[in-house]
């Protein structure tokens, strides 16, 4: 892992990607790393595209915003068009299988994964797509330890949904194995 990892999670308002960003950052903290999470606000976010950004680093993080992400995730076409504009050359793009990628992107790896479908059909609730996505991201990058990711997830989710979320996480890890 590089000294500083920058991630951008995008989708629509209700998909829980800001929570996913927070969880990821909190897992990093548990790993004794530093993390910063920011997000875009605006009336435009209303029902439209939403963006959460996370920076994870071994040392202090001064500048708080993502400049060139190492990893971008998109769950909706609108978000994908709006936010997958720049990515580091060795970066990874992850989008839901249903999306069309804009042209001319120079990422090292582009992954189209059935994130929404996995959540909907395999876990049974589309609402946990964000956790599936987390599993996929961490499965691919090991940006945080699996142990602490699970802890972080359990600390943020509503009581009574533990099993559901654990399953979603598992499915995400499994997805990762394909890429």
């Amino acid at each position, binding site marked *: 892992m590089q000294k500083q990892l920058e991630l951008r999670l995008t989708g629509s308002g209700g998909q829980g990607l800001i929570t996913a960003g927070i969880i990821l950052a909190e897992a990093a903290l548990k790993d004794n790393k530093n993390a910063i999470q920011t997000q875009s606000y605006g*009336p*435009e976010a*209303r*029902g*439209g595209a939403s963006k959460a950004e996370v920076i994870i680093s071994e040392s202090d993080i001064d500048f708080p915003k993502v400049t060139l992400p190492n990893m971008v995730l998109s769950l909706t076409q609108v978000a994908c068009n709006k936010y997958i504009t720049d990515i580091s050359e060795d970066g990874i793009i992850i989008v839901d299988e249903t999306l069309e990628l804009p042209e001319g992107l120079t990422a090292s790896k582009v992954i189209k994964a059935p994130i929404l479908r996995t959540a909907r059909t395999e876990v049974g609730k589309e609402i946990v797509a964000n956790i599936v996505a987390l599993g996929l991201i961490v499965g691919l990058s090991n940006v945080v330890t699996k142990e602490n990711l699970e802890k972080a997830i359990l600390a943020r989710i509503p009581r009574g949904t533990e099993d559901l979320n654990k399953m979603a996480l598992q499915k995400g890890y499994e997805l990762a194995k394909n890429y």
Partner: protein
Amino acid sequence: MNQPLVENYFRTDKLPHIWCPGCGHGIIMASIARAIDKLKLDKDKVCIVSGIGCSSRAPGYMDFNTLHTTHGRALAFATGVKLANPELEVIVIAGDGDLSAIGGNHLIHASRRNIGLTTICFNNNIYGMTGGQYSPTTPTHDKGTTAPYGNIDKPFDITKLAVGAGATFAAKGTVYHVNQLDKYIESAIKHKGFSLVEAISICPTYYGRKNKKGSVVDMMNFLKDSFVDHKVAEKLPPEKKQGKFLMGEFVNVEEPEYTELYDQIIEMFK
């Protein structure tokens, strides 16, 4: 295929609007356009003024002289527009927060002065734009992000407030009852002097979610089932009135209009 109403009265290049799926504000905005169309107003002589809020974004979409002001101050700006040029048909669009929280004072004074402004309140019982804080019209016990344990405030009846302040026209409608809403707005615009139409809207994103009001359709059904015309209600047996909210034209009286009275002073010196 074009929609004449939309083409004629809206800035179609700005559409679709920013409102959430199912937000009632679009329904009220269309109703205003239909009323203007019905009255055949000269577009160049119509001025739409709003404050700040989701609802207050409406003027940006409407093809008239449009003025998006500061939070709560729409009626004060509009008072200046109308008094300076009484020829203009001035319509004020305001959220419940905009109109009755920060803007409450301008509401009661415009009502009192009986100045020829038509005010349409987009009342969704919440602050939408800032993300779901309770407003002065949030029902007691309901939740908002700033009322996590349930609102302890008693809500305003905005219509009643305006009447208490002296309004000469006041009506209440809902985004479900669109035919009636069209009519209230039409009468309000025709009314000389200050007029208020409180249009009950829905905010599925914040008010609805926070208060488990179900889907957009559920929220519309709630309006359908709970509002009855006050004249109809008069004739209902008590048990049928229970839990119902009243809508309709509550006040419609003629009194001298402010800018006309002012013109009389000017006439004295001519």
